[in-house]
């Protein structure tokens, strides 16, 4: 039982990290960034590239090295997100929503199959594998590395929340979310803030990608597809556009999946998750913590 809860929290913290980027971008420009899951994949691959370039990493140094790689990857994935926004989404600002969604699907394809063309279709094995001493907590087994990854995820999420609620930059983001035109009149450089939002969201997805690579040990060019869907589900459960809600949603989805798998069997895990998504959209489309938003005409 406790084991299920721990597994759920662990997977859920991955979901939450990826979902945050989704949620931030959606909150600001109401765009479902379909390619977000692929930025996660991009993060995993750029982490792989950095680690391979470093050569052999001794087991004792694993965690500090991984942190450094994590930082590097976050920067590079973040920049990729900025480029994506500049090339694919900015020319269409103000276009009908359908065009933007289709562009996002196109971007997702371009990243996935561009990566396939660059690295080949075979999965890669991560040069660093986190497996080590396990400890007993309340009758459940978990490794120190798992704890460390949950810790990193938590630190990132808390940092992001502080950034959005306490800083000048965060205030600008929230202003644009409310009304981009008026924010521009108040002297906010709207395009720059949107760019930086993409940077942050993509960096978080990249971090999750490296962590997933190091934990599961195997990466491939389609790994972002499913996690993108799951992250969207998490964002909807928590309330899309709402940062604490999204974190909560990720954890809730992780727990639901962990228990659902236990009851129904592993092959139904994804069906269960999407079933939950449809159920949530029917019963409470604003999510657990989202406010009811009335559409203005």
């Amino acid at each position, binding site marked *: 039982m406790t084991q299920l809860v721990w597994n759920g929290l662990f997977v859920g913290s991955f979901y939450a990290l990826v979902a945050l980027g989704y949620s931030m971008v959606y909150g600001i420009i*109401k765009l*479902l960034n379909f390619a977000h899951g692929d930025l996660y994949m991009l993060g995993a691959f750029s982490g792989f590239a950095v680690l391979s370039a470093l050569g052999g990493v001794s087991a004792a140094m694993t965690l500090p090295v991984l942190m450094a790689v994590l930082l590097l990857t976050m920067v590079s994935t973040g920049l990729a997100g900025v480029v994506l926004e500049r*090339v*694919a989404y900015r*020319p*269409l600002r103000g*276009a*009908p*929503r*359908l*065009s*933007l*969604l*289709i*562009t996002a*699907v*196109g*971007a*997702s*394809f*371009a*990243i*996935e*199959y*561009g990566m*396939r*063309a660059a690295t080949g279709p075979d999965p890669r094995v991560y040069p660093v594998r986190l497996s080590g001493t396990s400890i007993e907590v309340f009758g459940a087994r978990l490794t120190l590395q798992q704890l460390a990854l949950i810790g990193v995820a938590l630190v990132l999420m808390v940092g992001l929340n502080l950034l959005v609620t306490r800083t000048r930059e965060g205030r600008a983001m929230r202003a644009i979310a409310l009304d981009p035109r008026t924010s521009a009149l108040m002297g906010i450089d709207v395009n720059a803030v949107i760019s930086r939002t993409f940077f942050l969201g993509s960096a978080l997805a990249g971090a999750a990608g490296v962590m997933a690579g190091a934990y599961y040990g195997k990466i491939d060019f389609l790994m972002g*597809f499913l996690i993108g*869907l799951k992250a*969207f*589900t998490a964002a*909807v459960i928590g309330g899309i556009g709402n940062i604490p809600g999204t974190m909560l949603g990720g954890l809730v989805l992780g727990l639901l999946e962990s228990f659902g798998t236990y009851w129904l069997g592993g*092959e*139904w895990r*994804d*069906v269960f998750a*999407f*079933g939950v*998504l*449809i159920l949530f*959209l*029917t019963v409470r*489309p604003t999510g657990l913590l989202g406010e009811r938003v009335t*559409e203005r*005409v």
Partner: protein
Amino acid sequence: MNETTKAPEAPRKIGAQRPQTRLSKLFDNRWVGLVGLLIALLVPFVNASNYTMSIMTTAAVFVMLASGLNIVVGFTGLLDLGYAAFFAVGAYTSGILATRFDLPLVATVPAVIVVTVIAGVIIGAPTLRLRSDYLAIVTLGFGEIIRITANNLPVTGGPSGIYGIPGLTDSPVSLYFVTVVIVAIAVIGASRLGRSRLGRAMRFVREDEDAAEATGVHTYRVKLAAYIAGAVWGGLAGVLFAGQVSAISPNSFTFLYSATVLMAVVLGGMGSVPGVVLGAIIISLLPELLRDAADYRFFIFGVLLIIVMIVRPQGLWPARSKEALK
């Protein structure tokens, strides 16, 4: 300021003030469709090899899928990313019925229509009340649910699927003729639907849902009708597919397939029936011609989607509304 600076162009109304070029006259010509059908029917007299017939039949089924998705995406403006789900529901329903009860494929059609309508209602009813971008993701999730379910249930044959489905006809050439005729009827049906009162309501919903609601269009009902129509078109295309390949497995109905159909609709021109037919033919025959570039195919698809949306959102053969001319 330079003296030669031109006055800003007045915003153009679609199809209204634009001078007619030879190309746009061709686009408006009503006989184009008939000529296209004649060409399609003449192909077997030029080349009737099994390979040609096979790719041409596949292309015809693809045209039917695209014209069905066009009702949902093009006319009504609802992005459906799991369209292959209905294709799968149709193919599996007819495949299971035909192999279990020894029925001819044609006899399964009523059951397929009933099942796809039910599937359309199940997925559409809760989600069509929501914002359109939620619908995109939910349909994507639904597509995955159908595929995974087909992969895990005993009745659908699991990962190996269903085989030994009876064909519609005996020879590849007659199958091609039957398919082309059925697809032509489906395309004409979609086109007539677009011009009907319901079709006008669909386009109104696409342009401005709130204004449509305010002028008395029951938007939810219109969206559901469009969604169900799309589901039925997809399901019937599934029957044709099952009859053509005689063995179906979950791998035929991936997200990639849904996205390819969407690509055809977007490239041809959303909401334009001749455009969508053209787009579907291009998308399904291009990989046969460019076998060497197979590795880059989906990469090119993705980039093309972005470019089309930025440079030419109306597609290759844009929809022209006759109402704008009045």
